[in-house]
């Protein structure tokens, strides 16, 4: 057995069957006032539905707006980070070091290969030319050689220079 309120709600919503409708409308003391109330209720329902729908739309838009803003912020931060962050990541450092080392090795090998086998070692002193006064030392001769030990001494050996008295050894 439905209560009056249940029947009233069903009537407002147009959910009563023909028999129930006839019985319910017959039971109303003032049908016209009830119809007016029904119209008001329907109008209110429509208004509320409209408002609630608008409200829901507005929230959705607000949420969407917030989401867009957040995405934009994140993009800005990311691009700012990309601009200021160090380029020297560990893998890049490793590759750079390896590349520099390879460059050095290649250059060294190339330079070493330019060194001719017959060329005098750059670690030895070279005598470019040498001369003695031929008038004072007509029989003078000059030899150049290198010592055989680890000192790598270059020797310019003169023979036939005029001998000098012991006094010349003075400091």
């Amino acid at each position, binding site marked *: 057995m439905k209560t009056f309120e249940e029947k009233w709600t069903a009537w407002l919503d147009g959910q009563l069957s023909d028999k129930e409708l006839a019985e319910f409308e017959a039971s109303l003391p003032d049908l016209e006032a009830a119809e007016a109330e029904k119209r008001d209720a329907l109008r209110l329902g429509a208004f509320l539905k409209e408002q609630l729908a608008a409200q829901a739309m507005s929230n959705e838009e607000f949420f969407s707006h917030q989401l867009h803003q957040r995405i934009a912020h994140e993009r800005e931060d990311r691009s700012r980070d990309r601009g200021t962050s160090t*380029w*020297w990541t560990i893998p*890049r*450092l490793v*590759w*750079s*070091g390896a*590349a*520099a080392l390879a*460059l*050095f090795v290649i*250059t*060294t*090998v190339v*330079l*070493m290969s330019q*060194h001719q086998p017959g060329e005098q*070692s*750059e*670690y*030895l*002193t*070279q*005598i*470019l*030319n*040498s*001369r*003695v*006064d031929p008038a*004072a*030392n007509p029989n003078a001769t000059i030899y150049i050689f*290198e*010592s055989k*030990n*680890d*000192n*790598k*001494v*270059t*020797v*310019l*050996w*003169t023979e036939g*220079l*005029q*001998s*000098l*008295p*012991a*006094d*010349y*050894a*003075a*400091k």
Partner: protein
Amino acid sequence: MQLRPLLLAMFFTLAISVASADAEHLVWSGLVIAENVPQPAPIPPELTTLEQTLKDLFGYNQFEVIGQSNKTLKTGEEDWLANSKYFGLHVDARGENDAGYTLNLKLYKENDVLLETDANLSKSSPLVIKGPQVGSGQLLLVLVVKDDEQAHRRRHAEPANPITAGWYRLRRIIHNALP
């Protein structure tokens, strides 16, 4: 952008090379009288590393420095004198090159030039010149380039290896290429 690390690494290497290539060197020049005496004096400290070589080469047991000079080469174009009472060794450095320093050497006996020589004095190879007989001894001229003492010893202790040689060559080329 990929070239940036390479360029930086190269610049860094160049900077180090140039800085180390600019190291100053000290050239010791000495007038030495070599003699055979019954009780030889200890060899002067400047000749300690060459003692055995000098003894083997000339057969004397005493080496006395009668004149000397220590010259620090900054530009490689300095000149200096090592004097004794009667002898003078004038050394005129005419620049740094691949082998070391280009030097013009003149041995004076008072005002006379006894001997003149042009040489490339290597940083790791001393130069010994046998001069005239003086009394019972012999006048020797000795020139030695000294740098960092430890590096000097290391170079003598270890045979030169091709990698090191290549590195020094590269250093010199870079040094010469840059103003």
